[in-house]
């Protein structure tokens, strides 16, 4: 249980780092965080309400929910409609709208769609229910892929025969490279994903510094981690350095987790993958290697992927690239709200639009629309709250 003194520690540490950020911030800097969990942490900790004027945080394409194309959701739902099929997925995907239904709605209509919290649950369910064809609609990045690979190996070892993988896995470094190569985005540095980096280490990000002369800091997920990560990015800018550094030292080793990477490489090979908003990126997705082909749902089931257009007006694509901000989207807060999301950026608790919608923009007590290019950085006039809060016994 949180004691009063420890809570003060976290607030004190944060306040020290924030003072330093205010001191160092000069001009306008944009840092992109490439990890849905970072987006949620930033939102939940209220960091945006505390950052000095010159520092802007943008959410990039690291939210698997946001980058999974509509056609993939549709294909998964179509597979769930087959006789004797049970579709398993992580909870993150349940409410993403497909072109007509989400997995959640399909479940409500009677499809056997279940949420699992570990790839090994898929192995267990397939073992327990030999009469069903179990399709694991697997989404995630490099933090999750080794676990999925280990589960695939386990299924093969047990000769299960009724477990299939519908892979919707993606890789982060190729997406960052595609983003930077397009030259459309103006970014000064990256807050790099902590747990992806536990697996892949530091090296795969070197191109950010060497080819594009930008900074990157591998950051943890607590509020103080993120603040320290931003501080390290700022220091690099001030000192004219372009390096990849590790803030999340307690968990990330420079070489990553070699065994996890081997398991991943044994089971999967990189292929081109479609990313919502970024299009087709070479070698940015994962497919089962030949030796595991019999488990590949995209081959075993005759339900091909069909490209679907994003809903008209939806700017999720540009928002994911950091080119536009939620208020720029004609649907934002009108047709597309948290209660009735149109695009994935609003559905996902990690999506930029959801975070922005919840966070809001406040000026003197009125909910205002941020019509400037400045993104997601509304300031709440906290003076009345500070007085009230400090008066609480």
């Amino acid at each position: 249980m949180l004691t009063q003194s420890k809570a003060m520690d976290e607030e004190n540490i944060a306040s020290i780092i924030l003072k330093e950020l205010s001191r160092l911030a000069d001009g306008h800097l944009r840092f992109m965080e490439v990890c849905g969990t970072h987006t949620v942490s930033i939102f939940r900790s209220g960091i945006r309400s505390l950052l000095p004027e010159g520092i802007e945080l943008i959410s990039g394409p690291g939210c698997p929910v946001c980058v999974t194309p509509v056609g993939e959701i549709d294909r998964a739902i179509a597979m769930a409609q087959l006789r004797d099929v049970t579709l398993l997925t992580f909870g993150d995907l349940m409410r993403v709208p497909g072109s007509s239904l989400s997995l959640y709605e399909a479940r409500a209509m009677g499809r056997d769609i279940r949420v699992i919290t570990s790839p090994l649950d898929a192995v267990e369910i397939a073992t327990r229910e030999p009469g069903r064809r179990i399709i694991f609609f697997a989404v995630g990045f490099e933090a999750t892929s080794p676990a999925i690979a280990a589960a695939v190996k386990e299924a093969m070892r047990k000769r299960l025969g009724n477990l299939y993988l519908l892979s919707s896995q993606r890789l982060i470094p190729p997406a960052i490279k595609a983003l930077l190569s397009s030259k459309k985005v103006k970014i000064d540095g990256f807050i790099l994903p902590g747990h992806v980096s536990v697996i892949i280490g530091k090296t795969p990000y070197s191109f950010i510094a060497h080819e594009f002369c930008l900074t990157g800091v591998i950051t943890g997920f607590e509020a103080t981690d993120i603040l320290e990560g931003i501080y390290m990015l700022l220091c690099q800018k001030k000192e004219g350095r372009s390096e990849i550094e590790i803030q999340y030292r307690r968990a990330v080793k420079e070489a990553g987790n070699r065994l996890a990477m081997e398991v991943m490489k044994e089971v999967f090979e990189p292929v081109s993958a479609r990313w919502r908003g970024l299009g087709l990126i070479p070698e940015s997705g994962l497919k089962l290697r030949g030796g595991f082909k019999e488990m590949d749902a995209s081959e075993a089931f005759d339900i091909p992927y069909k490209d679907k257009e994003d809903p008209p007006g939806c700017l999720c694509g540009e928002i994911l690239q950091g080119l536009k901000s939620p208020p720029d989207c004609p649907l934002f807060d009108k047709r597309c709200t948290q209660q009735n999301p149109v695009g994935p950026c609003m559905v996902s608790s990690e999506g930029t639009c959801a975070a922005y919608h919840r966070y809001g923009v406040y000026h003197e007590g009125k909910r205002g629309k941020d019509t400037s290019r400045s993104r997601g950085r509304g300031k709440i006039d906290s003076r009345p709250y500070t007085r009230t809060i400090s008066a609480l016994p």
Partner: protein
Amino acid sequence: MCLGIPGKVVSIKGDFAEVDFGGVRTKVSLLLSPDVSEGDYVLVHVGFAIQRLGQQEAIETLRLFKEIDRGYVDSIEGNG
């Protein structure tokens, strides 16, 4: 992406460990982190230990998480 929190390995049986997170326990696969012993702290994501944390690192993390009270920290550091 990716929720991962540190927990303490309470027991090991084959490829699995029983890991404790502030009083809640779950079975965690050690297939991606085999060099783990009882008493170690591990970072867990989707039911797998993806990294062994050194004790100092774990304490640092747990302090950040505020999961444990002063007495427990002292006992780990040999002050209890």
